[in-house]
């Protein structure tokens, strides 16, 4: 039976990926050679919020508190232990806020924004791409291809800037910044949800419009290839209905690589659309990551990257487990 051995292999692979990535995640920020606590202190002195005297002592105390004074290998082991318990520690920049708190707030925004846009653009883009390649599709639909393909060539942050300029600045239809109005306290009410939706529309649109074309282009290419396959000819010679030919024979075969891409794209949902979030000041993971890199906030960077790694590895695992169901040929190689 293929299932048991295959399953074990995939799960072992999952842990290997996570461990490797977590290790890189630990060492990479430390290679920058920056001293986050000293820099933060110096900044505070410069802005006048701390005295110059006793700085060295304070740096030492904080370094001890964050465990930054110990040898690197000890820090690494502690880090691995913490990670295994999902204990991400405290933010340096927003001490005493824990990384977990920061992530939880930001993740909700990002997941909301990106799950919706990723799924929507996958569904519409894939379907559209398939129809564009389908010689039996109506002409008006197929003539929509060039504009959507063009849209895919525009980087989404640039598209975001254009949308921002047109709809927020000139027309003033939508708010141009943040996830909710200044002064609103986030809570679970219809009013707040509507407000959040209103703020998410432009960033969502910029991601949707640009990624739609990406899905469509990939799907169109696959569909064209599939349409040239012998089984399509034979299926047509079997007098099969056009709809069955499209779904059962065409789409069903052409979509396989798309599923792989979707799983990978879903993994990136947690990393946020960094540039779009920064452009729109959207309070998601992208903005947090951007700020914590600027502030050399190791724990937060590590926390975010670890989240990304975990989700990517998980989606890959899910993909590995579901693809054999969609494509019987994979089962054999397992």
């Amino acid at each position: 039976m293929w299932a048991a051995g295959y399953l074990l292999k995939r799960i072992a692979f999952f842990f290997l990926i996570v461990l490797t990535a977590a290790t890189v995640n630990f060492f990479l920020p430390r290679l920058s050679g920056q001293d986050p606590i000293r820099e933060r202190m110096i900044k505070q002195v410069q802005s006048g919020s701390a005295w110059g005297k006793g700085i060295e002592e304070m740096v030492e105390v904080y370094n001890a508190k964050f465990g930054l004074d110990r040898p690197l290998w000890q820090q690494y082991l502690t880090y691995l232990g913490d990670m295994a318990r999902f204990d991400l520690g405290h933010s340096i920049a927003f001490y005493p806020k824990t990384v977990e708190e920061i992530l939880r707030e930001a993740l909700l925004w990002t997941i909301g924004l990106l799950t919706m846009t990723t799924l929507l653009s996958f569904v519409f883009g894939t379907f559209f791409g398939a129809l564009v390649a389908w010689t039996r599709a109506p002409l008006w639909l197929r003539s929509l291809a060039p504009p959507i393909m063009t849209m895919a060539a525009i980087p989404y942050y640039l598209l975001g800037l254009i949308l921002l300029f047109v709809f927020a600045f000139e027309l003033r239809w939508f708010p141009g910044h943040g996830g909710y109005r200044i002064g609103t306290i986030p809570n679970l009410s219809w009013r707040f949800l509507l407000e959040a939706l209103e703020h998410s529309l432009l960033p969502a649109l910029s991601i949707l419009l640009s990624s739609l074309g990406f899905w469509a282009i990939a799907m169109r290419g696959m569909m064209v290839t599939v349409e040239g396959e012998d089984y399509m000819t034979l299926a047509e010679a079997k007098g099969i209905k056009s709809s069955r030919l499209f779904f059962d024979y065409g789409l069903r075969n052409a979509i396989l690589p798309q599923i792989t891409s979707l799983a990978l794209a879903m993994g990136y949902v947690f990393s946020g659309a960094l540039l779009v979030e920064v452009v729109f000041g959207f309070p998601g993971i992208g903005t947090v990551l951007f700020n914590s890199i600027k502030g050399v906030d190791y724990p937060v960077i590590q926390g975010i990257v670890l989240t990304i790694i975990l989700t990517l590895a998980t989606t890959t695992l899910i993909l590995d487990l579901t693809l054999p169901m969609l494509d019987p040929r994979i089962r054999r190689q397992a």
Partner: protein
Amino acid sequence: MTPRPRSNGEAHAQSAALQVRNLRVHYDTPSGVVQAVDSVSFSLEAGERFGLVGESGSGKTTLAMALLRMIKPPGQIESGQVWLDGQDVLALSGDEMRKLRLAGIALVAQGSMNSLNPVTRIRRQLLDGMKDHAAAGSNGTDNGTNAAKLSRREQEAFVHDLLARVGLEPQVADMYPHELSGGMKQRVCIAMAISMRPKVIIADEPTSALDVVVQMQIMETLRRVQEEVGAAVLLVGHDMGIMAQFVDRVGVMYAGKLVEVSPVRDIFSRPLHPYARLLIECLPSLEVKDTLEGIPGLPPSLIERPTGCLFHPRCPHAATECETQEQILDEAQPDRWVACHRLDLIHDLQPETGVS
């Protein structure tokens, strides 16, 4: 058993399973119009096995696809008539044509290795064509099984029966194409082709990807099921050996035209058209040891075609009239149709005393 064909079919429109008259197909390419099929006429009696031979690019496959009305742009059926069991195929609407496929005229395709949908089970692929013919009946599907109305158990029995007819185990129904050998895949394709008991099966080089042993098995299977369901077979290919063993009559195509249509025995023992003769002479012989020779020259470009008889640049008997005048298929002897100006001179046909 199969009725001996008596003519090229002009007078047999009623009894013929398939009747093709002056069919022309061309491809509109940027470099010019390619006349892939040029005024082809022939007919198949019910249950007859007819072979269509010719070099690559002679228009065999285009002709086969045209009969199914599956010529894709830039290709186009220009003119002509195709009658299937008394039905004017070229006059049918798109949906009527779709329903005629499989039910009236079925295909066993060339690339047997990739002819099956890789992601669905054989059972589903054996049944889905029929399911889409559910409301048929008006166009020659009275004897076709209507899978949509079958119960699950009946469907299962039906699939097993189909598989058994082509010599496959019932378990094959649960398999995917990649789990089958090339020969098994082609058997599945044959099972599909007979599933609605069509009047005509087009077999387009059905054994091209298989080794000789499997080739023979497949041809035997095809012959058996064809006789069982009483379908006529149009076998397209260039393997003269397979033709000799399988078909009743052979049509030789050259540059989109039929140059000779003759009973298979006659064409092997005494090919009449110079091209057919050269083609037969190309076959290696077991008795005579000799260097293998081809036909000198190349097939003509179908865009800039020679004038007159298309074969005249390569023909050893060509005369001036061959360069200027086209020749149509003519009954040179009983049952033997040849398009050649110089036939009498080449063969001295008049005192013919029966061809063995």
